[in-house]
């Protein structure tokens, strides 16, 4: 068949027969976005868990992110910017990771049969990553949209009121498990995928990474459950005054109130 090399189906073929560079870029981008999200998630967990120290500690963290200690005034818009960035990274990560999902019933059936037959840890863990990743499309999207639009509603009382009076705790509870499993498995897989922390004995390193992964997942799940419990308790006790903003006794004037 003689065909004009310049145009086939309207595609410019200047760099044919070179293979596309996009698979390499997408592979790298999938790992990079996953790494950023997983590390963000760990940082996030530490920040929200400051409620376990005290209301004042959590308040201080919140106000720090709103720039209160730098500008002398709280700008919740900063939080929206961070949320928008995370949302964009999440969308990109979901788009890239979706390429790996079973694309039709045949593939789905093949993989599930394979997983059930093999009884192979890392294969089964991948399936959990698919399920939790799928759940996070919806859970994380709901959470991030709320934070994007109401960045000022973060604080010991506003957060607790959202969790309890706003009935967000069921979503947070399911999302906690989905995110910790997905991120923990993902970080482990990043290590074996790229050969990080391989050391001289890759088999021994892999076993150690696997243990570390479970220890970290257990730690963050425990921390997350305690934190969620703390917000639920505060939210329950504060249910009659829901909507009230928390201000530490030592802060005058209230940074959320307009200056006179």
């Amino acid at each position, binding site marked *: 068949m003689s065909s004009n090399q310049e145009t086939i189906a309207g595609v410019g073929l200047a760099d044919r*027969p*070179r*293979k*596309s*560079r996009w*698979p*390499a*870029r*997408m*592979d*790298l981008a999938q790992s990079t976005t996953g790494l950023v999200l997983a590390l963000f998630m760990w940082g996030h967990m530490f920040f929200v868990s400051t409620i376990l120290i005290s209301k004042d500690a959590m308040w201080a963290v919140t106000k720090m992110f709103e720039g209160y200690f730098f500008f002398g005034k709280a700008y919740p818009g900063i939080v929206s910017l961070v949320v928008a960035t995370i949302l964009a990274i999440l969308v990109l990560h979901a788009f890239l990771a979706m*390429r*790996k999902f*079973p*694309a039709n019933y045949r*593939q789905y059936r*093949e*993989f599930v049969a*394979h*997983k*059930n*037959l*093999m*009884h*192979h840890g*890392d*294969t089964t863990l*991948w399936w959990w990553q698919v399920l939790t990743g799928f759940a996070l499309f919806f859970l994380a999207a709901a959470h991030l949209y709320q934070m994007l639009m109401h960045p000022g509603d973060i604080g010991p009382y506003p957060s607790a009121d959202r969790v309890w009076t706003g009935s967000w705790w069921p979503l947070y509870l399911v999302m906690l498990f989905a995110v910790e499993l997905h991120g923990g498995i993902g970080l482990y*897989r990043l290590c*074996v*995928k*790229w*050969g990080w922390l*391989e050391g001289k004995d*890759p088999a021994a390193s*892999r076993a150690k990474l696997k243990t570390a992964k479970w220890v970290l997942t257990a730690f963050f799940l425990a921390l997350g459950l305690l934190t969620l419990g703390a917000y639920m308790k505060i939210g329950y006790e504060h249910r009659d005054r829901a909507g009230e903003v928390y201000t530490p006794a030592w802060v005058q004037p209230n940074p959320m109130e307009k200056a006179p």
Partner: protein
Amino acid sequence: MTMNATPRNHRKLRFHILRYNPAKADDTPRVQVYELEEAPGMTLFIALTEIREKLDPSLQFDFVCRAGICGSCGMMINGRPSLACRSVTQSFPEDIWLAPLPVFELIGDLSVNTGKWMRGMSEKLETWVHLQQEKLDFTRIEKPMDPALAEEVYELDRCIECGCCVAGCGTARMREDFVGAVGLNKIARFRLDPRDARTDEDFYELVGDDNGVFGCMSLLGCHDVCPKQLPLQTQIAFLRRKMVAQGTKG
């Protein structure tokens, strides 16, 4: 052995074997059970041979070397791909389930055509040394290779193309064009070989897509089932880094 030695209690093994002959028009896949008394040191090769000799001459399976070198006897043993000749029945419970390797063309019962798949992969990935010179001069002595490097090449060359890594791969099960660990290992092997003139740019053309190294999801089934214990995890990770470096260079 003395006459009054106490008779050893050998286990009764039950082999559940997936039977199907695609060449027979009216055949349907079914599981057939064979009972056999276990013998000391019995391998699946010995057991299957005994079944064929004593119980059912129609049972199809492949063996050549009986020593884990030829790669003919790969099959699913209790759900995992492995070489039957190197699998000792003592390491399994009394019920042993055998099925042909998936992905490959089924010849009949436990016999599959791995050769056809391997040849297709080899042609696609050009798994042979691409020499620099146009014509081979057989009178010239070949350039010596550093012994350490030769060892490295040999380590990867130990692959027997049994197909276990392909059958143990979630990606290969879902996507039939995926080249599998066997293919990626071969690219890693020729990449090491100083006689092969190909550069990373050339290798990117062969494995720089989702049928190649970027299709690998790092489930490591290949690494964990490889009967030759090839370092597939490290080799695929290495190849991925090199191909990403090549692909992001522009």
